[in-house]
């Protein structure tokens, strides 16, 4: 049992075996009913609700000693949440971790899907705050259960329609509702709608854990995931007027970085591994933006701030 030398005071991966079995049974049901929210007996984790307790429980349940774990928060491997969770599993599961998307077998994410296409055999674990897409439209769980049972999703379309009548376009930019395999409407967690197309027909298994709300749901590989829209207002993703200031990527999701108090800002890839590997790979970097150069790009009124 060499695996337990650094974690002798914990069970492997923190959770006890009975809890893991309970979550495993819920996960299998979730995979069999794509997009349906399976209730589970969420445990208290050594971190506050809202910090990824659902995702951590799912990850703790699926990982074994031969896995390699990557954790991202808003696309980045370096933010507090990602670093803490990575260290948590290094300590409790004695597991190999990586920042490289292609090297990881299990990726836990908060609010982004990596830019690099995921492959078969990988598992993407989402941290979910509010799993019920209808919750802000109908607060009663008994009612939303019934709405899912009857496939009664008219209210969601009314909400999107009200967006159009008020703003002229669908103003929902994150947690954009999707329909999974033509049956359940599902909240893709607060990922930007930019990532919704990556969920469709994805080769990897996608698992969603909501710790406070105690729900688990899943999208099996190669499953149809359709963003809700209207014929005359088709679904579209965000776009930017400029490229990433660091790697020059034209097709990745960009974060706005405020540079000073004079309104200067720059746009960089939200996916830190994608950005770094593009910079490592390019023999001559596309445009080596300095911060001063980047700060000249101020007149941008990007879709990102929508």
């Amino acid at each position, binding site marked *: 049992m060499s695996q337990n030398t650094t974690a002798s005071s914990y069970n492997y991966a923190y959770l006890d075996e009975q809890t893991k079995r309970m979550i495993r049974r819920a996960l299998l049901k979730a995979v069999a*009913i794509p997009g349906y929210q399976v209730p589970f007996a969420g445990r208290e984790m050594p971190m506050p609700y809202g910090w990824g307790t659902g995702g951590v429980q799912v990850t703790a349940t699926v990982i074994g000693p031969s896995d390699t774990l990557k954790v991202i928060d808003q696309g980045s491997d370096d933010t507090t949440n990602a670093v803490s969770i990575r260290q948590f599993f290094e300590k409790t599961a004695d597991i190999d971790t990586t920042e490289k998307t292609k090297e990881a077998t299990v990726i836990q994410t908060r609010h982004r899907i990596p830019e690099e296409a995921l492959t078969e055999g990988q598992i993407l674990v989402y941290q979910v705050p509010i799993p019920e897409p209808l919750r802000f439209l109908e607060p009663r769980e008994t009612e939303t259960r019934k709405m899912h049972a009857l496939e009664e999703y008219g209210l969601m379309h009314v909400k999107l329609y009200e967006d159009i009548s008020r703003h002229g376009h669908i103003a929902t930019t994150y947690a954009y509702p999707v329909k999974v395999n033509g049956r359940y409407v599902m909240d893709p967690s607060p990922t930007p709608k930019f990532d919704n197309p990556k969920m469709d027909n994805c080769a990897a298994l996608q698992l969603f854990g909501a710790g406070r709300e105690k729900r688990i749901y899943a999208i099996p590989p190669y499953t149809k995931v359709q963003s809700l829209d209207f014929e005359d207002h088709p679904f579209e993703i965000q776009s930017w007027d400029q490229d990433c200031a660091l790697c020059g990527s034209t097709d990745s999701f960009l974060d706005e970085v405020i540079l000073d108090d004079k309104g200067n800002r720059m746009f960089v890839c939200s996916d830190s591994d994608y950005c770094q590997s593009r910079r490592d790979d390019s023999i001559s970097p596309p445009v080596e933006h300095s911060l001063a150069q980047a700060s000249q790009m101020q007149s941008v009124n990007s879709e990102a701030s929508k």
Partner: protein
Amino acid sequence: MMNAQSNSLTTQNIGQTTLPGFHNPVFDATAVFRTVLEAMSHPGTVIETPLTCESPRKLNSSAASILLALTDMDTTVWLSPKTECSDVADYLRFHTGCSLTNNADHCDFAIINGQEDPDLVTSLPIGTAEYPDRSATLIITVDHFNAELKAVLSGPGIKTTSNLSPAPLNSKFWGWMKANRNTFPCGIDIIFASPTHICALPRSSEMDI
């Protein structure tokens, strides 16, 4: 010597067996679960079971390892007439602490031999419209996955199509499995277990025979 029955902590006999369970309960259970998860996410794909269990004669090694990995005192298991015997019951009670039932309509896991009549499992719980997850998982023990009759599967988890060919299988099972898809999102999730491999058919798969 202590008598298991008088020392019972539950309402049922805790069971006694000389057969070992997992050699390493934590990592073996994880490995088996990952295999089942992979099978369930790729319906029709035949996957090798990561370990072998010394199982009771009427339960093959794969089926035994799935039950050791997924059942415990919170789950109720139903055994079909062909798989039910005191060996299997004691083995499961001893290693998992699960309770066994004679009512197929009140179980979380059901085990049946592929040659038996699917009429035995028509009363398994399929869940409700609001809670389709409150359904049973059926483990069907078979010998291999090279049957001549192949069902073609499509749906979630399947890139184009995949084949399902467990054998030996009572031919009445095909009609029952097809009907099982019609109750979606309610329904039974099936795991076929040969001694060395497993293959899953979740309720979400479309089937052509």
